[in-house]
């Protein structure tokens, strides 16, 4: 059974590799815009305030946060975010249900295959970027620990996104809900601003939610900003949320299948 999932993983990975121009064009554009905006925004703020640190970040660290964040953002997003809902609406989910495999596990494998491609890009940049940005260096231990936490991030992002997609069993359009979840995850996860800049009370509440562990925690770990305590806390909270969201997903999936007719819209 595991070899079937592995075969799917390899197949999907090769499929994503087929969209080379699109993939790299979007990635380069995204990286350029994200990092340019961050560079000029924070340069403006640091220069005006005349300080060396804001929210625990120096200017260089802020840039590295956004550079690594670009890659992590790509890893936690699925290559084709609307695939499940589209299959439900078109009735083509039937084909997937006929496989002798768990559909939800299959979709998770597909998500990891896309994340693996984005991670490969990240590794390339870890090798190349230090020649251009001196402050962009990642030590091996942080890379290993950060990669491990990324596994939890991808799983959490998958669960949150899939819960929105399965609403397609009941409602005619879920695009809005998926985009909404993306906003919320990015904003509360620290993709727009490092969470350490938020008011302390907000940070305390967020630390109990799954959102920081989808983005901010793995990014900061890869930057080397982590400790054993943070690592253990991230694991515990991530596992609790993964279990809770998985149970919810299983329930929604079960109910949704009862609603599904395969007729398409």
């Amino acid at each position, binding site marked *: 059974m595991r070899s079937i999932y592995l075969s799917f993983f390899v197949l999907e990975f090769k499929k994503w590799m087929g969209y080379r121009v699109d993939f790299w064009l979007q990635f380069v554009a*995204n990286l350029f815009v994200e990092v340019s905006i961050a560079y*000029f925004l924070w*340069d403006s703020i640091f220069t005006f305030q005349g300080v060396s640190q*804001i929210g625990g970040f120096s200017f260089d660290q802020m840039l590295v946060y956004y550079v690594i964040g670009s890659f992590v953002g790509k890893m936690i997003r699925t290559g084709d975010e609307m695939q499940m809902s589209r299959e439900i609406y078109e009735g083509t989910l039937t084909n997937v249900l006929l496989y002798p495999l768990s559909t939800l596990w299959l979709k998770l494998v597909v998500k990891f295959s896309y994340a693996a491609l984005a991670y490969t890009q990240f590794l390339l940049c870890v090798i190349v970027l230090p020649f251009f940005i001196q402050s962009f260096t990642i030590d091996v231990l942080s890379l290993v620990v950060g990669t491990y936490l990324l596994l939890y991030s991808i799983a959490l992002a998958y669960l949150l996104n899939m819960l929105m997609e399965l609403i397609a069993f009941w409602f005619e359009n879920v695009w*809005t809900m998926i985009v909404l979840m993306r906003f*919320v995850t990015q904003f509360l996860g620290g993709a727009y*601003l490092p969470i350490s800049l938020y008011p302390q009370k907000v940070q305390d509440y967020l630390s109990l939610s799954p959102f920081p562990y989808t983005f901010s925690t793995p990014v900061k770990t890869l930057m080397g900003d982590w400790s054993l305590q943070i690592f253990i806390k991230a694991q515990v909270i991530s596992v609790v949320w993964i279990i809770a969201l998985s149970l919810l997903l299983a329930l929604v999936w079960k109910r949704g299948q009862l609603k599904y007719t395969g007729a398409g819209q």
Partner: protein
Amino acid sequence: MILRYLKLYRQFLLFSISKTAEFRMDFFARIIMDVIYYGTNIYFFKVIFLHSSALAGWTESQVMVFVGIFLMMDGLNMTIFANNLWWISNLVNKGELDYYLLRPVSSLFFLSTREVAINSFINLLFAGGIFAWAIASYPHSISWDRYLLMSFLFVLGFLLYFFLRIIFILPVFWTHGGKGGELVFWTLNRLLERPDRIFRSWMRVVVITILPFGVMSSYPAHVLWEADVWPFVTGSVVVTLVFGFLTVALWKFALRSYSSASS
């Protein structure tokens, strides 16, 4: 001729209203989504101002006015163009543009305006409310002529946004796949959401000329309080005219490359 197009748009509007009534869940979901989007944008700058007393020479109240302007621009775009422009690349790839090209009206007008997003219009009203709140919170008075100037530049910025979006869609006529450069456009759209003056040197030139996102929502804000408004007015007019002519020319050129499903 203008009356003819207005009558046509009225029909689009009536059709859109009846269509909206069929998808009530999506209607409310879109409103909630945009309210949260507006909230996150306001909170983003509120957090920035916890750590800085100014951003690119603007105070917090000025930045909030800027936010109100770009949210209104987003609301207007979502109401009039967004739904329609999203489908252009699909129609081109499937060769189904013929239906629209055969109409005795401008194909660009027909394709861009045939559906009005009523739920986004509700969000446009919210965005207008945010702008009004920001203006009410602004500590200095603004004369009525500055509001008129801002409105004029807002319209130009909105048209410029449309032109740029069309230009990024056009590659689909030649690539015959994907969404052309549209996904790249959505990434670059982030430039619109930041005050233009945070950008310096070569980047400032880019966001004012080649990719004039910096003109769209920042320039209308500038004319509300800058002493000398004419650089912003002339800049907006020139850039909008240039991109307007370029868009129409490129659209006509792209249509020559179009091959329909029936050909």
